[in-house]
Structure formats: structure tokens, C-alpha cells
């Protein structure tokens, strides 16, 4: 069960979770705002608190390549990155997921340059949406800690064997001190036994990994990978349920807040869920039937949970932290529109883009989104997306 509550920077909590998960290899390259995570891990390894190989590589491409190697020999492997670093490792992200290597990575989400930005939005991860990894978004420090440990158990499950990433908003999560319930090492050890690979590179039983795939086999291989990622959904639920039993903290693919009797709902992903809760409370006081949906699981996409959660809603106001330039606008809204298109009864989806490149989104902006959306009720013409907090609208 849970022990004491301690004040801790969220990056440190992520690193502590990796330590408690007994990672055996960490290969990483420092990049703001991920730096504190790997700095702390290198200290833990140097101090002998974590018995692992720490490989200080020369780039993120190398970081993920080292991870591919260490995971292939059967070591529990971890890395972390942000934005440009994530893009640089992009090529290997696709390779390790198709090779079914259960690497765990924290992505401290940051805007893609240019203009050069070190601040938070979700444009980095959206470039890697289809890389075949399990993708989880954390809302607060506790979730970062819990989800990092859960990610190892999910990824390494023999029914899954797919890499998993935990997204945490850069600075707004990575650099803040939060009070976090720690878990005893004993609890983590019981929850997360050592990794037992199905196949690994070992001279006693040679195998070839990452072989060439002719057109006669490639499509079947890709389909097998897609089915495995979709099927990981039930294991994710199982793992979260077990974590809930052991720690008292329960997680769902889609979290709901004040959805009872809601006709309108906001939908967020990541740390802005907590700000949106404040806006929901304020608007509920004014008698507006507003609720909130928080999307925790981005891949595999929880289609049924979403369809169930929006039942009875007239309007769904989606806040995106990235823009699909020249396209649909918000990637999360676009996904939701697709998920609900085939439903006989579905809410009107109003897409808002806010909080790009570290721009703050206070509760008033969420109220403004809902206010604007309500004005669109019954209107025929709805734009692909709207923006909030961008000057010159």
C-alpha cells in the first residue's frame, strides 16, 4: 500500500519510478525540458543506487538505437526525450515497435521549433502518432510516477511486447514540485517482476531480429503489429486495475469529471485537465451543464470508452495543444471526429487550439471556449477549428 507523501520535482519522481522499476539500461541524451529526468538517473547509477548501464550517447538517434540493442538482449530499458530529440529518434521508434521491444520512454512534451521553443505543447508527440508505441498522457506528478512503473509492466507483458511512452507536459509538469505518494520497493517488486523476454539475442540460441521483409510478407507483418497494439488495450486495463488494488490509485483510458447530467463537455489531454476542472466548477456554479473528459490513453485509442463517455452530450469542446498545419487543425479533435463519425447520435465537436509553445491557458480561456461553442449551437457553419489566446483573431 501507499506510504508517505513527499514533495518532489516531477522529473525526479519519473527518475525514481525508473529506479524502483529496476531498469537495467538507460541510454539518453539531455534535452530541455527532459534534462532533470536523465540527470537524476545518471546520479542514481553513479551512486550505486540503481544497478544499470547508463549510456551517455551522442544523439537521440543513438539513444533509441542503444535501447533497441539492450532491449533485444533482454534488459529492461528506459530513455527519455523531448521535441527535436524525439524527431531525431523517430526512425528508430518505428523499428523498435515493429520488433516488439518493450522499451519505456518518458516524453517531456515540448513544441517543435521553429521559432526555437523549449516550452510545452504536444506538437512533438503528434509527429510520432503512428510510430506503433503505446502512448499514455499524464495529468500530474503522481500520474507520471505511477504510469512510468505501469508502463514497464504493460510493455513487457508477453501478450503485448510493445514499447510504451508516458507523456508529461514539459515544465508545467516536468519542472514543478508536487506532493507525491511514494510506493514501497516491495510493492513495486511484487507488481513488476523481472523482464522475461520471449526472444532475445543470445549466442546459445541465435535468432535474427530486424530482418528484411519482402512485399510478400510486409503487409502481414504490419497487420500483426497493429492487432498487437490494439489488443494491448485489455492488458493496459488489467495492469491499471492491479496498480489500483495495490496503491488505491485507479486509472482509466478516459477519465470523467462532473459528467452527470452534462450536455456539454470539454476534452483535454495532459496537464491542462486540472485547469479545465476549475473552469468546469465555475461554469457549473453558473448553471451550465458542463463536464470534462480527460483522455489518458492516446494509443491504442480507446474508441469504445469515448463513444460511451459522450452519450447524451450535445456538444464536445476539444482542446488541442498542437496544430496539424494546413489540415484539420487539432489532432485530438480530428481523432474524435473520426471515432464518432459512424455513430447515429453524436455530439457536435468544436475544436479549439490553445497553449502552443508554452502559452498559458487559464481557466478563463476554457470558459471562453465553452462560451463560444455554445454560440455555435444550431449554427450550420462551423469552422474546422478555432483558436484561443492568439492575438489578432
Amino acid at each position, binding site marked *: 500500500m501507499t506510504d508517505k507523501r513527499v514533495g518532489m520535482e516531477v522529473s525526479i519522481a519519473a527518475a525514481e519510478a525508473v529506479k524502483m522499476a529496476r531498469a537495467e539500461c538507460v541510454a539518453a541524451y539531455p534535452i530541455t525540458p527532459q534534462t532533470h529526468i536523465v540527470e537524476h538517473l545518471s546520479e542514481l547509477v553513479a551512486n550505486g543506487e540503481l544497478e544499470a548501464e547508463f549510456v551517455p550517447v551522442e544523439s537521440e538517434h543513438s539513444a533509441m538505437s542503444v535501447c533497441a540493442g539492450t532491449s533485444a538482449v533482454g534488459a529492461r530499458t528506459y530513455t527519455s526525450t523531448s521535441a527535436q530529440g524525439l524527431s531525431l529518434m523517430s526512425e528508430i521508434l518505428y523499428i523498435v515497435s515493429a520488433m*516488439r521491444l518493450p522499451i519505456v520512454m518518458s516524453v517531456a512534451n515540448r513544441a517543435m521549433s521553429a521559432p526555437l521553443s523549449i516550452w510545452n505543447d504536444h506538437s512533438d508527440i503528434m509527429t510520432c502518432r503512428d510510430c506503433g508505441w503505446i502512448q499514455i498522457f499524464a495529468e500530474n506528478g503522481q500520474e507520471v510516477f505511477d504510469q512510468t512503473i505501469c508502463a514497464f509492466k504493460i510493455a513487457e507483458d508477453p501478450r503485448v511486447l510493445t514499447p510504451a511512452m508516458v507523456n508529461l507536459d514539459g515544465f508545467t509538469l516536468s519542472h514543478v514540485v508536487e506532493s507525491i505518494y511514494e510506493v514501497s520497493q516491495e510493492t513495486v517488486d511484487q507488481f513488476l517482476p523481472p523482464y522475461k523476454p520471449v*526472444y532475445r539475442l543470445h549466442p546459445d540460441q541465435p*535468432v*535474427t*531480429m530486424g*530482418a528484411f*521483409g519482402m512485399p510478400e510478407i510486409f503487409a*502481414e507483418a504490419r*497487420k500483426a503489429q497493429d492487432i498487437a497494439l490494439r489488443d494491448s488495450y485489455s492488458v493496459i486495463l488489467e495492469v491499471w486495475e492491479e496498480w489500483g488494488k495495490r496503491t488505491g490509485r485507479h486509472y482509466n483510458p478516459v477519465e470523467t469529471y462532473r459528467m452527470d447530467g452534462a450536455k456539454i463537455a470539454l476534452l483535454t489531454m495532459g496537464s491542462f485537465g486540472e485547469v479545465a476542472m476549475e473552469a468546469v466548477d465555475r461554469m457549473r456554479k453558473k448553471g451550465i451543464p458542463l463536464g470534462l473528459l480527460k483522455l489518458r490513453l492516446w494509443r491504442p485509442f480507446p474508441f469504445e470508452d469515448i463513444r460511451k463517455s459522450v452519450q447524451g452530450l450535445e456538444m464536445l469542446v476539444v482542446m488541442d495543444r498542437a496544430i496539424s498545419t494546413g489540415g484539420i487543425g487539432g489532432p485530438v479533435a480530428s481523432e474524435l471526429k473520426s471515432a464518432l463519425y459512424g455513430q447515429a447520435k453524436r455530439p457536435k465537436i468544436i475544436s479549439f487550439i490553445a497553449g502552443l509553445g508554452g502559452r498559458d491557458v487559464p481557466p478563463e480561456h476554457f470558459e471562453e471556449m465553452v462560451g463560444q461553442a455554445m454560440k455555435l449551437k444550431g449554427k450550420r457553419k462551423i469552422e474546422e477549428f478555432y483558436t484561443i489566446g492568439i492575438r489578432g483573431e
Partner: protein
Amino acid sequence: MTKPIDQFTWKDIPLGCVVTEAGNAHEYKTGDWKSQRPVVDTSKCIKCGVCWIFCPDAAIYKNEEGYFLANLDYCKGCGICARECWTGCITMVEEEK
């Protein structure tokens, strides 16, 4: 291999496309890639084996009489053996079909 690759369904794909059988590349005959094949004039061959050393596909073997010849199941017709041969006994000949 249990069955030809084009009969595998997605359910037959081993986890992560791992190849569990060591050395099964020999089942993959790459000889049909070539557009030219090496023909050896044994009267000029001095059995030095330089072609065997240079062949990037290890497709050259020594026959019972000690001559070095290409196994056409694997030879891709790159012509390196003909280029490197000291006596010029190897000629690259266009494949007819």
C-alpha cells in the same frame, strides 16, 4: 522454413518478425537477380582463388578439379570476380532470359 513465405497469414508471423532458424538465408536464392553470369575459361584459370576472396556473396566454390566456379543459385552477377581475375579467365555473359 515450414511453408513458403507467401503463404504466411498475419497470424503466422512470429513475434516481432524474429527469425528463429539460424542461417536460413541459404534458402533464399538470390541468383535470379542477375542480368549477367560469370563464365570461366578453365584453360586460362590458374586456380588462384582471387575470385573466391572477392566475391561479396560467398557464391564461389571450388570444384573437384580445383577450379573456382560461381554457384548460380546465389551469384547476383555483380562482375567483381571478372574484374579482379588475374588472368582474365572470367567473362560476364548476358543472361538470355
